[in-house]
């Protein structure tokens, strides 16, 4: 894909209100994640105040049950939620691409087998399976990433397979194959460039799902206890009954709003990417 084409995508993406909005949200969160040490007034692991302090000029969102500053926890939590979402989505899209390309390109028995596997994975209720796996392999950052990506590759694999199937019938691919071009060259030169844009939009959507799943797992107490994500903060808020007191406004509301906003950021970017890449959808809106 030439530079020109990417430039065009960028223009369409930014000329589309929803996509632009999503992108801006993602940029803001990225900045917060990177600048967390400068933005946060305290170290989120330090006990800096009395437990259950109400919001005041020193602690803008009060403190939690052990006296840590909630605002600082939230700012640092951005890193964890964003990182888990992005890494898990990346691995699952990588797996999805691998399965999708192999399945679509080779067809036949390999394709049938892999697609049956995809069907199987899609039937399994994923959240309970993740709870089961997370409970057995133990809560840690990488285990959560692993569990999420092991389950979420199936539906991207299907989307990518159908894209490969379309690409395969294109004249230039058939021409390349007919003159005996090496498979690896056909794949990297002709198939991959056509797959990457679709994979990108799938990646963005997968990231939004991963963030929600991570939040749920952490909320169930299966998150990494040493790196607090937004879901973990809500786990403690629930365990200490914060949602039954006035503390819900500064302890329960903010983390959920942040999760929602980040997911919206990814979803809006993803949908408008999809719209750009799928002309059929563009017409229907």
């Amino acid at each position, binding site marked *: 894909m030439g530079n020109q084409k990417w430039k065009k995508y960028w223009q369409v993406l930014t000329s589309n209100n929803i996509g632009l909005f999503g992108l801006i949200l993602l940029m803001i969160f990225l900045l917060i994640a990177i600048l967390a040490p400068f933005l946060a007034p305290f170290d989120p692991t330090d006990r800096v105040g009395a437990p259950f302090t109400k919001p005041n000029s020193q602690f803008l969102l009060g403190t939690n049950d052990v006296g840590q500053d909630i605002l600082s926890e939230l700012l640092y939590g951005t890193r964890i939620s964003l990182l888990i979402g992005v890494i898990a989505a990346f691995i699952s899209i990588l797996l999805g691409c691998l399965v999708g390309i192999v399945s679509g390109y080779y067809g036949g028995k390999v394709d049938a087998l892999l697609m049956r596997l995809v069907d199987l994975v899609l*039937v399994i209720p994923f959240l309970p399976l993740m709870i089961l796996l997370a*409970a057995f392999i133990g809560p840690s950052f990488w285990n959560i990433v692993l569990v999420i990506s092991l389950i979420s590759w199936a539906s991207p694999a299907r989307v990518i397979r159908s894209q490969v199937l379309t690409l395969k019938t294109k004249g230039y691919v058939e021409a390349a194959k007919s003159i005996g071009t090496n498979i690896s060259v056909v794949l990297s030169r002709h198939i991959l460039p056509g797959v990457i844009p679709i994979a990108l939009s799938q990646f963005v959507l997968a990231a939004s799902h991963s963030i929600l799943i991570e939040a749920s797992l952490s909320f169930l107490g299966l998150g990494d206890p040493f790196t607090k994500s937004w879901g973990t903060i809500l786990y403690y808020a629930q365990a200490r009954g914060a949602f039954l007191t006035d503390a819900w406004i500064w302890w329960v509301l903010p983390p959920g709003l942040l999760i929602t906003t980040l997911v919206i950021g990814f979803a809006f970017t993803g949908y408008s990417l999809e719209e750009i890449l799928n002309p059929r959808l563009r017409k229907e809106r």
Partner: protein
Amino acid sequence: MLGKFIAGKFLQYLIVIFLMLTLNFLLPRLMPGNPLVFLAGEDVGFMSSAEKEAILDKYGLNDSIIEQYGAYIKDIFTGDFGYSYQQKRPISELLMERLPWTMLLTGLGLVLSTIIGVMFGAISAWRRGTKTDANLLTVFMFLSAMPSFWVGMILVSIFSAQLGWLPVFGAESAWSNYSGIDRIIDIGKHLILPLATLILISVTSTFMIMRYSMLNVLGEDYIMMAKAKGVKEKVIKYKHAMRNALLPVATVFMLSLGFTLGGATVIETVFAYPGVGRLMFESVLSRDYPLIQATFLIITFSVVIANFLADLIYPLLDPKVGSRNG
């Protein structure tokens, strides 16, 4: 043709069940650490060696792995899910106690969210491109972006803790001795918030599919024809368009059961609602591994059965598939 399709599906679901059973069988035996902890829970440390020996014997851990697997499969299919050493009760008994609550919650949730999703999806498609359509789309997108448990927590904060209108947790008041209609009202009051949460988080998928399917139908020739003939708008909308657009929704209804049950796990936890999902959470908290596995299996079974039912029902709904059968 149809028979072959159903047999194929049946085989597929059978494979899912066996894969999940095998996963369940292997997890406690392959994970590093003492398999006894995984089979009997973390209280193992307090057990005497005779007790440990009894458990080893019960699970046949001294037998060959193949014999163990055979015994395991046989137990599951005879309804023996093992024993929760922490709750000191057979697991199948625990499951039976919790299952009705989950079925009540997810069943109602699925029906109501489908009705609501269908209605708004139809409105959105009918007014495609207008402000109403855009607003509805935005609202439903936001709904699907919210974490389910957080929606539940916020609802409890507002309606139970702050306003005091509804009970905070549980499925009915403890030690109330309500009976008859009073008990039903009590159960209903406890159900409102978890149900509302479940609907809010699962309604978007139905909405999106209904909207999309309705848009497709509205583009069909027979709708144009009806319009040209001067058929009343209401008749076109309800009789022609909505009816035909409902087909894809019917499949999604069954298929979303897996999602709904998963969502219910988290929601039941927030509301301490005594369903299977809450049981799974409790067993995770106490690291009661056999119970975690059993709750997972029962949820998987339900989902697989629902999927299979959807496959059986689908040909009845879709005349195109049905006629192929003659």
